[in-house]
Structures are given as C-alpha cells and as structure tokens.
C-alpha cells in the first residue's frame, strides 16, 4: 500500500500543479475585480450577477448547447456506421481504413482550421462556397454549423476507431447466433452490437458533452466568435473578457460556469454507474 502510494506521488504532484492549483485560483479570482496588471480586489458575487443578467452570456450558452447537440449526433452516427461496416471488412483492410480515419485527428487544429477556411470555405473561391453560392463563415445563421462541420471532420474518425475497438471486443459467437436465427444487419446492430458497446457509447456521449462546453480552438482560429457573436462560445467569451477587456475576474467567473455545465454530465454518469453497481 505504502509502495503504491509512493508511486502515485509524482502523478499527484503533476495533477496538483497543472490542474488543481489553477482551478482553485480561477475560483478565487472569480470573486475579484482584476485587470491582470494590478492587485485583485475582492468583490463577492458581483461578477456572477453581471454575467447572469447579461443576455450575451445566455446567447453564448445557447451556442454551446447547439454545438453539443451537433456533436452528440452527427459524428456519433458517422462513427457508428463506419465502425459497424469495419466489422465486416477483412482484418488487413481494417487496419488501413482505421489509419485513414485517424489521419484528420492527428493533424494540428490550426492546420485543419486554415485548410478548411482557405480551400473549402473561402468567401471568394472556396469549393463549398462556390457549390452552394453561400458565404458560410461570414453568415450569422451558418457560421457555427460550418465550424462544427470542420471540427467534425477532425473528430469523427477518432470516434470510429474507439467504437471499432469496442466492437472488436464482442465475442463473435453472438454474431453467429444472430445470423443463425436469421437476423438482418439492422437487427444484428440493434440487438448485438449496440447493447454490447453501450458502456463505450455512453462514456463517449458524456465526454462529448464535457468537451463541447470546453470548445475553443476552432472557433477562435476561424472566427473569434464572430460575426456578431454568432459563433461565440463560453471558452472564447472567457478568453476575450480576460485578455481583451482586461477583466480577469469576470473571465474567471465565466470559466467557473463552464466547470458547472461540464460537471452535470459527469455527475450524471457517476450516478448511472452507482445505480447499476459499477456498470453502465
């Protein structure tokens, strides 16, 4: 036991320094007025009163919800289809496909964002712009969905690999029995594949909600929350409030609301596990 604890110390120190200390400081600064230059002044709940009474904050939360709904559905469906079909592909070819699916995921987000911004969504000569005759990134009604599509291109392949790995763990006997009983592909998926990988699926759904409320990179790189705040999310609002408006206290307060939103699915997941004896 002592040995185990000793071996855990380096990780705990790292987690403490990188995660716990900044998190605690963020919570502290959320109750202060601080411009990042001079000393912070304690102001109690004033930052929160300001945030919750600001219609911009709720508009931004709604953007995060829309982003979350997109990522709970579109990449999941694409990943499931791909993973299910991979199950029917010979082993050698499976490796090749899995690698191809993973390529977008390993590219840096800056490279992916710029590629799509210049080649596909450029307002004057982008491929998608020309096909649909619409400036997706410059329009308030489509900018958030366009950025979500870019992030989806980056993300869904990884998800497909995760689901494929989960499907690979399913005992092949179940598929044989299903085939012998005359089940079609949809029935096999519904009665064998999906129930068997349900724990993996539910975990990825929970994490998708968490990650969706933390989204920052693609939006900041491509539109910085514009035009007209149409693609603004909590993370970009936090950043701009702190670094552009020099209101680090208020920015910290917005960041803590992100923690609150992200903890809801985590708490839900833990509750589900506890209800089902450690299994989902």
């Amino acid at each position, binding site marked *: 036991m002592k040995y185990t604890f000793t071996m855990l110390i380096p990780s705990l120190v790292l987690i403490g320094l990188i995660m716990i200390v900044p998190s605690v400081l963020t919570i502290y600064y959320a109750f202060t007025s601080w411009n990042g230059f*001079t000393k912070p002044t304690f102001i109690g709940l004033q930052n929160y009163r300001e945030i919750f009474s600001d219609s911009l904050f709720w508009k931004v939360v709604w953007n995060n919800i829309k982003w979350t709904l997109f990522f709970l559905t579109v990449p999941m469906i694409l990943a499931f289809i791909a993973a299910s079909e991979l199950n029917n592909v010979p082993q050698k070819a499976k490796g090749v496909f899995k690698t191809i699916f993973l390529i977008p995921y390993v590219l840096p987000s800056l490279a992916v964002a710029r590629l799509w911004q210049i080649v596909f969504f450029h307002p004057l000569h982008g491929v998608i712009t020309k096909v649909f005759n619409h400036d997706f990134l410059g329009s308030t009604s489509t900018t958030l969905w366009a950025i979500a599509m870019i992030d989806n291109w980056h993300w869904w392949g990884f998800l497909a690999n995760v689901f494929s790995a989960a499907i690979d763990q399913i005992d092949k006997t179940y598929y044989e029995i299903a085939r012998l009983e005359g089940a079609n592909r949809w029935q096999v998926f519904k009665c064998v594949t999906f129930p068997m990988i349900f724990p993996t699926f539910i975990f990825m759904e929970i994490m998708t909600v968490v990650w969706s409320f933390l989204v920052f990179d693609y939006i900041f790189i491509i539109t*910085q929350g514009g035009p007209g705040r149409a693609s603004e999310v909590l993370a970009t609002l936090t950043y701009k409030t702190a670094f552009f408006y020099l209101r680090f206290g208020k920015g910290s307060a917005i960041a803590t609301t992100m923690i609150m939103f992200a903890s809801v699915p985590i708490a839900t997941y833990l509750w589900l596990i506890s209800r089902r004896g450690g299994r989902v």
Partner: protein
Amino acid sequence: MSVKRLVLVLFIMMAFLSTMLARELYLWMSWAEQERKEWALERYFPTFEQQTGIKVKAVEMPGDEQTLRTQLIAGKGPDVVGVAGPSFVPLYVDAGFLIPLDEYAKKYHWDELLTDLYWKLGHYKGKLWTIPQEFEAMVLFYNPRIFKENGWKPPRTIKEMEELAAKMKEKGIMPFANGNVGWKPAIEWVFTAAVNHIAGPEKVYEALTGKIPWTDPSFVESVEATKKWFQEGWLGGGKFFSLEIGEVYQLLVEGKAGMAIWGTWAFGGIVHHSTSPEDWDWVPFPSKEELPYPIFAIGVGSSAGINKNAKDPDAAAQYITFRLREPLDNLELFAEDLKVNGTTVFTPIKGFELNDETVNRLKELGVDERVIKFLVLSTEAFEKNTYGYVTWTFWPPESDRYIIDNLELVWLGEMSSEEFLKGLQEVFEKEFKEGRVMYVPPRS
C-alpha cells in the same frame, strides 16, 4: 610562465572581460515580411551597433501582447517595451512594468525633438513613461488602373465615394478591400474614418473631452453610414467577416477591388505585393461636404517604454533616441527604412523639415513618391489643424474594445446605431471618470 603563455592568458582574460562589459540590448520585433526582418538584421541594427557599441539581440516576438504582459509580470521581457498604444500606458505604469523616462529625456534632449502632441501623449501622472512611435493616419487607397479604365476620379466627398462604390459593385469590382479575419480590430478603421470624416474632428474632440456624448446625432449619422457601407455589400464585397486581412493588398493591386479603407501602415505592406505604380495610390479619406478637406485622422501605432527589469536602461534609451533621430542623423538609412517598412517608422520631430531639398533627396534615394506625399500632407495637417483622432490612440482601452466587438452587431441589424452609441457612452464615461483618456490635442 613564458611570455607567449602570458600573452595568451591576458588575451583570454580581456576577451572574457569585454564580453562581460559588452553592452547588450534585448528587443522583441514583429516582422510582417521576411524582407523587413532581413533589412533590420543586416542593416538597421548593425548601424545602431556601430554608432553606439551596443550589441542588439533582436528576436521575433514570441506571441502577442498577452505574452508580453506575462513576461513582464515574471520580471522578464524585452528591454524596450512596445506598449500597444498611449491608452494602455496607464495600465503598464500602474502595474510597475516601466521606468520613468524623464532623466533620459533630459540626457538625450527628447523634449527638444518631440512635437507637443507626442511629448504629451507619453506622459501620465506628471511623468514621461513612453515615447509614442509609428505615426499613422486613415486614408483611402485605390487602384489607379481601374479608375483610369473606367474614367473615374478619386473621391473627395463621402457622397462621391458612395457613388463610386455603387458603380464598382455594378461592374463586379469589390468597392472596398476590407475584411477582419485575422485582425478583428480592422472594423474600427471603418468607424474611425466615419466619425472623423462625417461627424468631423471637432465633434470627436468634444466627445473625447466629455463635452458632448457619443449619442450626438452626428455620430449616429456616422455609424449609420458604416452600416450602409456594409449592408450595400461594399465592404469586402459583402464578405467583411470572412475576408482575410492578409489578402486585401492582393485584391487591390490586382484590380479585383477598387478602393480600400486602410491606414498608412499599409504602405509598408502593399509595396511587397505591388509590381507597378499603377497598382495602387492613395488620397486623403473623403469628408462630408461641410467639413474641410483634407482631414487626416492621426494615430500612434505603439509607444516605446523601458522595462523596469532592463539590465541596461540607458542602452534602451539610446535605441529610442537612435530611432527618433533617424531622419535627422541618417537620411539614407531613413529612406531605406521608409522603403522597407513604410511610414510607420516616422515620428514627426522638430528640426526635420520636409522642405523641397529633403523631398528631392528622398526621391533620389528611391523613396516612393506616394509615401513622400503622405509625409508632406500629414505634416501640413498638423500645422493647419485639419487632423482627427483614431480610436486606438485616443479612445480608452475598454471603449476601444467595445467598438470592435459591438459595431458588427449594428451592421448585422442586431443592434441599432443609437443603442450602440449609448453603450459606448456608458463605457467611455466610466473610463473618463477613472482618468483613462490620455491627452487629446486641443483644436486651435
């Protein structure tokens, strides 16, 4: 010990000592093009080193202003601190990042060099903290070839400019090569041009000094004009929010755009895209008929302060002096600087006159006549009091940021001009009471 060995030891000791005693200056630079970097490293800094014996260690700025602030908080950062503009000086001073420059001003006679405006812009709480640099103004760029082909003349009034924009749009030419992808604050260039050239510099002065509110009808008219320019599809051809700032020079020189609302910092950028004198030219930004012409809304790109933790503050002061005195002490170097970097390198100083002799000499040294034209006309604007005020120099920081973030809501129809200006007034009033509005040169 033999004589040879003694000489060798002495030589090594002297080399070591000279390294220890060598004066060094640590700078952060932001070079938009490779050409500018090469010229600085091969010509500009060696000239300074030769003159002063101070070795320059210049590195590419490792981030943006946030990185600079983080470094300063940690007690590091460059010796010469480039503060984003005069309105940020109080923040840097109150945070204790900078040292007062009064003793260096006396030593290097900066008070005798700087014009009244620049001298006062660098002051805060009775002391000198920064030397404003990078003189710039809002103007209207245009493509002479397109104008010639269509029989158009560069506009002098807002009405003429709008008529031209409509004609350009009909012909499939982007009226204004403007976009804000890559630089969100590009929207405030349009606001700056509008308030100074529609409401007028007198009104802007009154608002900046708290005599009239930003909700004045003249500013409503100005903001409504910018909304019209966007909604008519003139700014960026209707793609203002998706057009990259890095592409706009190419659009103008290629003739895909007819005009552009830029500042004179663009001289340094557009020369690297242009292949012919017919590619671009500029005129003073048009004004409303009732206002004087030309007006130059002037500003300061950045201000130079000295880091509290600089190892050799005097070396930093010598560098600032070298930059200031460049046109006086080394016209050839100044001419090269203008050719590579544009007019942002110029700080108007006493004793440097743009008389015929200097102008001809600059032409002989190969400085673009379009650039010289700006130096001459803008200097005259100072003398004739026909100058205005750019937002990033004269507005306090939160008010400036408010304009950047909220003007687009007006253009998109999500906020009225009145609501926008009411919000600006609220933010501005708070900062005005806190003393965050820097020196606003009075109208004479």
